[in-house]
């Protein structure tokens, strides 16, 4: 049973969290995720959600407190953005290293200095090496659906890792869209019961105990192996979800790329604009397709490789690694070296700068006409 409604992204994620029935939540305000945590506070206050809401004094403590709660067997959640995610950074890595199942939503936002509350993907991507599963939504429906999937992925016995949902600040967090909600029992059945507790008085263990040079690398290798294996399991979980939601979920989405001569690659909300650009180009007879990355970690290398052989690809990055390049462009370059693909990196939309479908179309045309440099900044 599905209910059709309309919600802003923050409230859609809050609703998904409520349906996932977490036991412990940590809340600390930061734009643009604040209204999500306000909504969760309302759910707890009204009794709709039976959970303990810890009103922490910083993001560092938000992640620390849900880490503690997760060790003691609770299903947990928090959300943050930008500076908050950076302030949380030490705990983000700690949680990843400890392989503790928990879920955090990141309402993506630019990083200072200078101050900016507006959207880009830099904050989310700074955590790409932290041993978290990372998913990125394109619209409010996906933000809702991926939140529910994140709980199951994180707690799955074959995965056991923290999971981060990225969704664009303001563009999704504060935009109301049509949305199909699952009923509570479908979500219950899908996620299942949490069965994970490390703190056990009858079987006491040390958690995070010192590891010397003989053993430390072994722990890191076990995470690598878990991430190597996680992708296939995540595909299964996405398929399982698709069956109850009737919306197809996969680590990447390919839009008109089977017969494409040229590709655009992107992730997040502006993929929708890229899709419109593809349609416009197709109507002019130009065979362009879109690869959209939904799962950023583990990175869907094999899935992307299937489509990019011999192609020119315009990669959209709402982020930048200074001294190196667009982060998504670099990721795709790293799998294209023997596929005879040509990567054109577009850096755009930093700090909330609006990017239109027409601008994406124009840049794709420049790529087709061999007029595009290796890296362009859309100022």
């Amino acid at each position, binding site marked *: 049973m599905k209910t059709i409604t309309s919600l802003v992204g923050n409230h859609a994620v809050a609703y998904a969290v409520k349906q996932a029935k977490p036991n412990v939540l940590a809340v600390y305000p930061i734009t643009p995720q604040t209204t999500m945590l306000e909504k969760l506070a309302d759910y707890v206050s009204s009794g709709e959600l039976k959970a303990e809401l810890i009103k922490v004094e910083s993001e560092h*403590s938000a992640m*620390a407190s849900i880490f*503690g709660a997760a060790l*003691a067997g609770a299903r947990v959640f928090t959300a943050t953005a930008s500076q908050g995610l950076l302030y949380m950074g030490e705990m983000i890595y700690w949680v990843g290293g400890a392989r503790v199942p928990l879920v955090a939503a990141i309402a993506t936002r630019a990083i200072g200095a200078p101050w900016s509350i507006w959207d880009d993907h830099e904050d989310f991507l700074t955590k790409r090496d932290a041993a978290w599963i990372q998913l990125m939504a394109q619209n409010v429906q996906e933000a809702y659906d991926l939140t529910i999937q994140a709980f199951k992925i994180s707690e799955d016995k074959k995965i056991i890792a923290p999971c981060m949902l990225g969704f664009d600040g303001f563009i999704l967090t504060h935009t109301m869209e049509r949305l199909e909600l699952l009923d509570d029992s479908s979500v219950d059945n899908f996620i299942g019961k949490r069965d994970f507790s490390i703190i056990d008085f009858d079987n006491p263990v040390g958690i995070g*105990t010192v590891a010397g040079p003989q053993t430390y690398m072994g722990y890191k290798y076990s995470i690598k192996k878990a991430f190597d294996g996680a992708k296939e399991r995540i595909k299964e979980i996405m398929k399982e979800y698709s069956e109850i939601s009737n919306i197809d979920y996969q680590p990447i989405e390919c839009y008109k790329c089977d017969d494409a001569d040229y590709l655009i690659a992107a992730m997040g909300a502006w993929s929708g604009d890229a899709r419109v650009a593809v349609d416009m180009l197709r109507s002019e007879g130009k065979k362009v397709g879109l690869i959209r990355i939904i799962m950023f970690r583990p990175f869907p290398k094999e899935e992307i490789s299937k489509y990019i052989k011999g192609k020119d690809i315009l990669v959209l990055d709402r982020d930048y690694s200074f001294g190196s390049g667009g982060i998504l462009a670099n990721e795709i370059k790293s799998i294209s070296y023997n596929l005879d693909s040509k990567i054109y990196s577009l850096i755009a939309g930093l700090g909330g700068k609006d990017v239109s479908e027409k601008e994406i179309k124009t840049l794709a045309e420049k790529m087709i006409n061999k007029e595009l440099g290796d890296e362009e900044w859309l100022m």
Partner: protein
Amino acid sequence: MANVNYMLRGTAACPGCPIPRELNNILEIAGKDTVLVVPASCSTIIMGDDIHGMPSVVPVVHSPFAAPSAIASGIKAAMNQLNKKGNVIVWAGDGSTGDIGFASLSGAAERNEDIIYICYDNEAYMNTGIQRSGLTPRGAWSTTTPEGKREFKKPLPFLMMDHKIPYVATLSIAYPFDYEAKIKKAMTISGFRYLHILSPCPPGWRFDPSLTIEIAKLAVETGIWPLMEYENNKLKLTGPSILLKDKSKRKPIEEYLKLQERFKELSDEEKRLLEEDINAMWLEIERRMS
């Protein structure tokens, strides 16, 4: 005393280090249904490694430096929601407590989280090799204060009383009856409980490992470390410190200072300032007791 050793022998603690004894006395009272949260500190090492195992017979959650209060808050919240009973105890050094983790400690105290926070105060960053902390006393040598610390010791017990939490106490392992009475009382109270142990450190304070208890005792007898207890908004002195309200009953601080090489270079002026700090602390105690 119970039959169980809650802290097993053969830890990595330095000779003369009081930490294993301090912990064992706590765990004997708290019992097996207890989880320890331990931030980066000497106890990170004392709690063993993944090859040799850990000396604790209760679960230990190791914590980044600034995080133990929040981790403990989360553990307790989960236990409440999942109907599990047990004690959540933070065991943290003075650097974590008074410096890097102070915001998190203050937050957890302000929320009156149902946890016990114990600071074992060896008055510097000892695990990294004796760097000054906010809780290093005036005049003390450390590797980052080669000429002696110029500032006073941050008054953590008072700062925690100002959070209006249900229980604050200062402890010394040299007075085990007072020590254990305070642990026992803390166990009977719910809400945020803050216990602060002055924990002498032979290599850091530069004294012979055989003198640990003597120095802990002198800290109390000279009035440098008053044993006190704050409960229901009321402060009182306990044990030997009750009589030391009368300054004439206190031993001269030289007796404490001269046993520790960290005070070897202390000038007369610095000693006078240190005495002023101590007098001001006792005036503050009197003010808070009245």
